[in-house]
């Protein structure tokens, strides 16, 4: 499709997007970059209502990918598409000191800016808040979850399990004959009722995929052992040359238990990241999931050594601290789903600060200098928590 037809179709689609945006109270914006098929850096701007809508893309061309350049492109992209909504006004008009704080918040249309965590993006987020393009900014919680998974790859027993699984996975997916022999054995076992999937290797940019790799090797262990046995019975000339390291991993009686002990936590982490990536995932899930995972490590996942559990807790704390803003904590407190966890996380330290302290900072930030608004916010918050206290223990329903 090209020419006038394309322009017409794009105009219709953009009109529908503008219509949808005009009806929204507020929105979030994300900016993300990738390398295109022509090896050029491309950035896209997505608006969340919370339905994700593609607003614009830009290329920096000869310009460097600095925070300032990214912010200029972001504001230009937003201004071009949001002119109809704002008229002649600019983004920072909401922050006019003539308005009361409550009015400022009502006029501010872009409340949150979310990006992943490279340094220019982090700086750009700060500049955008200073320039009043948005009310606040924060890091992508799904990326933070991936970075926790990356940290796990350096902690025993995940470290050995991951290396062993990847060694087996790489060998059997890259060796045509070994892969074919394994597939035949796996199919025979499947026919006999065994639940065996195919070997999976995670993508390098998606660390939580470790769970899929380790689980698939674990599930294939029986077929892998049969494959080794079959191969050993072949005449020497027809035998596949399986690397000694791979043979040792498959034959070792310790492989299965060492992989199995890593799976529950990795699966929990992977499914948590999938929740954070899902459309319509609420903002509260970021702090909720990280807090719940951290609490779970105190009393659950007993198959992991204590040292590993405390290292993971440290990693969860560090990674969340990198992305979090007090308003994320306030969102966590405002989500009824997480109400049973609130008391338990109250004493937990996140980067040296407790969640109730961060919640207080969020209220202070929202209220600004407006004492009356601050009072009303605090009163509502107290009333909201009182409802929780009045509810039967552990069961938050009528």
């Amino acid at each position: 499709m090209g020419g006038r037809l394309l322009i017409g179709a794009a105009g219709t689609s953009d009109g529908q997007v503008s219509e949808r945006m005009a009806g929204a109270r507020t929105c979030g914006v994300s900016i993300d970059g990738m390398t295109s098929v022509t090896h050029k850096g491309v950035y896209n701007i997505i608006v969340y209502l919370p339905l994700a809508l593609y607003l614009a893309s830009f290329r920096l061309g000869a310009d460097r990918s600095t925070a300032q350049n990214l912010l200029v492109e972001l504001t230009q992209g937003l201004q071009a598409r949001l002119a109809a909504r704002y008229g002649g006004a600019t983004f920072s008009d909401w922050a006019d000191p003539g308005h009361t704080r409550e009015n400022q918040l009502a006029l501010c249309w872009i409340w949150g800016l979310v990006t992943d965590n490279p340094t220019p993006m982090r700086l750009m987020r700060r500049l955008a808040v200073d320039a009043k393009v948005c009310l606040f900014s924060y890091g992508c919680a799904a990326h933070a979850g991936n970075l926790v998974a990356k940290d796990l790859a350096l902690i025993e027993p995940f470290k050995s399990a991951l290396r062993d699984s990847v060694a087996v996975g790489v060998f059997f997916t890259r060796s045509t004959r070994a892969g074919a022999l394994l597939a035949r054995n796996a199919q025979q076992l499947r026919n006999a009722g065994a639940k065996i999937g195919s070997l999976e290797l995670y993508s390098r940019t998606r660390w939580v995929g470790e769970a899929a790799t380790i689980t698939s090797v674990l599930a294939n262990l029986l077929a892998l052992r049969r494959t080794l046995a079959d191969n050993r019975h072949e005449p020497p000339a027809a035998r596949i040359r399986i690397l000694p390291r791979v043979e040792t991993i498959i034959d070792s009686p310790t492989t299965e238990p060492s992989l199995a002990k890593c799976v529950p936590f990795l699966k929990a982490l992977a499914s948590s990241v999938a929740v954070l990536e899902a459309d319509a995932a609420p903002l509260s899930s970021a702090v909720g999931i990280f807090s719940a995972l951290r609490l779970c490590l105190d009393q659950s996942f007993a198959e992991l050594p204590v040292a590993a559990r405390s290292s993971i807790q440290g990693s969860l704390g560090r990674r969340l601290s990198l992305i979090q803003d007090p308003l994320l904590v306030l969102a966590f407190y405002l989500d009824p789903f997480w109400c049973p966890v609130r008391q338990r996380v109250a004493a937990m330290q996140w980067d040296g600060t407790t969640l109730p302290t961060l919640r207080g900072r969020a209220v202070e930030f929202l209220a600004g200098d407006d004492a009356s608004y601050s009072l009303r916010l605090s009163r509502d918050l107290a009333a909201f928590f009182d409802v929780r206290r009045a509810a039967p223990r552990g069961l938050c329903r009528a």
Partner: protein
Amino acid sequence: MAFAGRDLHPAQWWVLMGEPFPTLRVVALRLFALPPSAAGGERAFKTAKLVHTAVRNRLDPAKADMQTRIMFNSAQLARADIIASYGRSCAEHMLLERLGMAAVDQAPAAPPAPADGTEGAGEEDYAGDIEEVAPAAFDAIVEGVVNGDDNE
């Protein structure tokens, strides 16, 4: 009243039950319109990769952008109300269960589909046959996979 309907999207909960907290309700409704992750951008890139392919690598960037916008936004706008159809995921319920706090109002929803924008497990391509690789080189390949791009 308490917290009936905890499985609802919090934005919907505040619409339905937030009336006693009028000041906080405005803030809550705005906060719950925001996403916790930038996965929408990753999904948009996946659409962009379908438009701007190796075969069509001379496509004008402006046209590629228009086509991506049409493809991505049409699919999104055709969707049902994502807030109304939202249900808490199994993963979140399981975390609460592990903490001994599983108080549910409804059966857990099906787990969310993995975001298509981020590459899923098993998508990595490994070219070439590995049987002829020396053990040391094999170890280097394994380390390369394990210590790949850190995506920070």
